[in-house]
């Protein structure tokens, strides 16, 4: 308890509802725009089935996160690794984790910049966009996780409404025959697509363990609600995959960098709703803002707590500068980015999003007694 006071965070508290909204935004963050393409590329006609498989597999990972959070309530990831792995090893792993979150933040920042620069404001230097987005993120993080959550609560209805508009009005142009025959692709193809999808939307959820369950005010009956939130979030991805492949065709979807954006471009409901691609761009940037914020928050808090600073707020500004610098050099080109995402990212996120918590949980259970004696 002392520690919480030292960190000056004792007042911060978020509701379960806010946390779930944050989780949903995190899951659909980058995926809503990028997933359909990679899913269609690997699983062809069965892209949406692949997404469903990813949803099922992701459920297991969510439960793993849940288990570890319940094993050590009132503690965040840094506390847990120090407890379980010992002080120095724990600190080292935490630093690595901070690095993981920082790299992820930089790559998400690059993704925003890249999207805007290729699709919308073509001649604007990427640096300016990165700087502006990061400015907003740093400002938000300085104001605290509570503020971020409230902002998410404000924006959430808009994001859902905007996405629903795209979904609903795409339905008339859905042609089921585009994805027939069903289950045409092999199991390999489907699982490959699912693996990529999980690595983007589910595994990184580990960073949310920095706020969960420590700052969540309600502690009862959390799991069903969280799982429901997760399923809802994944439903968005499955639905958009289904819609893009049936409306655009599988090959076209796979060949587009941003298939969802193309869907929005071709939307035309009797002149009432047309030229609505900015809608999807806006809601996407909003979701990705929260994803970026959470990555950045995790990176900063983990670092600050590991080296024992009085407040994480004191290093947000320099960390923001580092993120900007990193985002500018992280991917030399889009080709490099695609290649990296396809080959290494899966393993990178698997290490920190699956192996790491699994180890913590297992070792924590094995060392159960000594830890509880430490606790008291």
């Amino acid at each position, binding site marked *: 308890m002392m520690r919480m006071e030292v960190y000056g965070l004792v007042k911060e508290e978020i509701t379960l509802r806010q946390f779930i909204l944050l989780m949903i935004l995190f899951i659909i963050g980058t995926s809503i725009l990028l997933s359909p393409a990679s899913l269609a590329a690997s699983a062809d006609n069965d892209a949406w089935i692949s997404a469903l498989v990813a949803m099922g597999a992701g459920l297991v990972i969510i439960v793993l996160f849940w288990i570890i959070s319940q094993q050590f309530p009132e503690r965040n990831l840094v506390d847990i690794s120090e407890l379980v792995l010992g002080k120095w090893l724990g600190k080292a792993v935490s630093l690595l984790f901070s690095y993981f979150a920082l790299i992820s933040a930089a790559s998400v920042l690059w993704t925003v910049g890249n999207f805007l620069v290729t699709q*919308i404001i073509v001649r604007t230097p990427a640096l300016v966009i990165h700087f502006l987005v990061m400015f907003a993120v740093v400002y938000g993080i300085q104001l605290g996780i509570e503020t971020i959550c409230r902002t998410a609560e404000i924006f959430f209805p808009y994001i859902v409404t905007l996405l629903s508009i795209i979904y609903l009005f795409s339905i008339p142009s859905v042609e089921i025959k585009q994805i027939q025959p069903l289950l045409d692709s092999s199991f390999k193809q489907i699982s490959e697509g699912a693996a990529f999808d999980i690595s983007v939307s589910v595994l990184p959820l580990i960073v949310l363990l920095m706020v969960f369950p420590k700052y969540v005010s309600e502690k009862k009956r959390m799991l069903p609600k969280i799982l429901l939130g997760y399923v809802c979030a994944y439903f968005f991805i499955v639905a958009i995959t289904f819609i893009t492949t049936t409306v655009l065709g599988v090959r076209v979807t796979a060949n587009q960098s941003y298939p969802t954006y193309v869907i929005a471009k071709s939307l035309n409901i009797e002149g009432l709703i047309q*030229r609505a691609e900015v809608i999807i761009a806006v809601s996407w940037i909003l979701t990705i803002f929260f994803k970026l914020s959470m990555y950045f928050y995790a990176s900063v808090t983990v670092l600050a707590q590991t080296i024992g600073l009085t407040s994480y707020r004191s290093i947000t500004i320099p960390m923001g500068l580092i993120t900007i610098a990193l985002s500018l050099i992280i991917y030399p080109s889009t080709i490099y980015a695609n290649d990296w995402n396809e080959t290494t990212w899966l393993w990178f996120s698997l290490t920190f999003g699956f192996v790491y918590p699994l180890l913590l949980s297992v070792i924590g259970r094995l060392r159960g007694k000594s830890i509880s004696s430490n606790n008291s």
Partner: protein
Amino acid sequence: MSRFFRSKRQNPQENSTTIKLYPSLQQNITHFKQTVGESTDIVIRTFKAGQTGSMDIAVLYTSGLVNNELVHDFILDTLMSEIRKTPLDAPAHKSKRYKTKHIEENGNKAYQLIKDYAMTGGNVTDIDTMEKLFLHVLSGDTVVMLDGSIQAMAIDTRGWESRGVEEPSTQSVVRGPKEGFTETLRTNTALLRRRIKDPNLWIRSKPIGSKSKTDVAVVYLHGVADEKVVKEVYHRLNKINIDAILDSGYVEELIQDETYTPFPTVYNSERPDTIAAGILEGRIAIVVDGSPFVLLVPALFVQFFQSAEDYFQRADFSTLIRLIRYMAFFLALLTPSVYIALTTYHQEMIPTSFLVSLSAQREGVPFPAFVEALLMEITFEILREAGVRLPKAVGSAISIVGALVLGQAAVEAGIVSSAMVIVVSLTAISSFVSPSFNFAISIRMLRFGFMSLAATLGLFGILFGLIILTLHLASLRSFGVPYLSPMAPFIGADQKDAILRFPRWKLTTRPRLINQSNMDREDAKAPKPEKRKRLNQRKEQE
């Protein structure tokens, strides 16, 4: 209560000037005259009274602040004629036979006599220091001083020329009470008391301002308002250390949670019904003497979109109107910036035929859309400001100049496109929809920021602006209550009176974050007309 009156920090200078009244009337008067610099508006009437006519009495009041009739009829008349027969022992301090002690004894006896039997005024206060003497005289009381007494009595004779209760100039309604607060504190508290005749309506006041000594009253419903917030209000008021308070705006600025924000975190209103409704919800009103604007805390974002009239009209209609206000808020904030963004960055979003006509209008306009918009917006702001300051008679001239000369002629001269004129007018009209004037000001300030963001990054500039704005709003608190509640944090029960307005019988709870304990209001029932059959039965019974 005691905490409130115990000033936390006393001005050291004031401390040194705390002087007890002298027993000698002459000494007192001399001191008084010196201090007020023989100001001509202060009347010092000395006369002799009593059976023997040996008692020196002085009556002090500030002319203009007192009700002259009251002073004449009940004080001067009483003292000079009615107690003519009463034996008031002359202190006769001039005679050397008496010692000082005697003088005081006599004086105090006479003082008690007059106070108990002769003073027909209602509110009489004892005064024993010079400081209090000044305060009472200068705030409109009449002070009676007796020679030989170390006490003086202050009779409440306040009665200055003041504006009557009129229709408020802001926040006017079509349906609903048309009374507005005035500049007089007592009138204002009376207006509130008249609406809430509950013993739990507590009104406590205290002068604030070392020079102005302005009365500031805190009004709340005891048992309904959150005690913690009440304490916080007192605490913040006590912390105020300022020479003068000339309007409630001073208080607002000194007690708000966050100074560096364009948004008001303290609500103000000229309408007693609005303030009374706020008090009934558990909010705390701060009435400042000399200002018709009463403050209300805690203030939430949604409150600035609610008009008193919402509760006097039908619920469905009020909901619609509220939604329109929110729409107007976004229009006022974003129209020019969206126009700039669309026409300079996102032409693909404009339908072809409209784009063609827009671009035909812009042929020959020398400035970029941003400069064009800035030009028109600034012109409008100048016009608006001029319109507020100008004498009413000239006001119509301004609107002619604004509408005709600047609108029509600027288009014809090719300085701005006609679409821009539409945009600016729409913005201008929308910015007046908000029932709260100070909220409209913040929108107007932010608009320019959004315009420059739109000019550099298009819609994405606007989006980033909105993200930062929402972050900022989400971080604000008003007296500990999150500014954006009940939206964020989301409170389901409070949605009944936030963006929507549910029917009266649904509004049975008070806002959750405003008062933690006393949630339930009276349980109103939906009106249910009696069935004809039962009505007939009853008739038969009768």
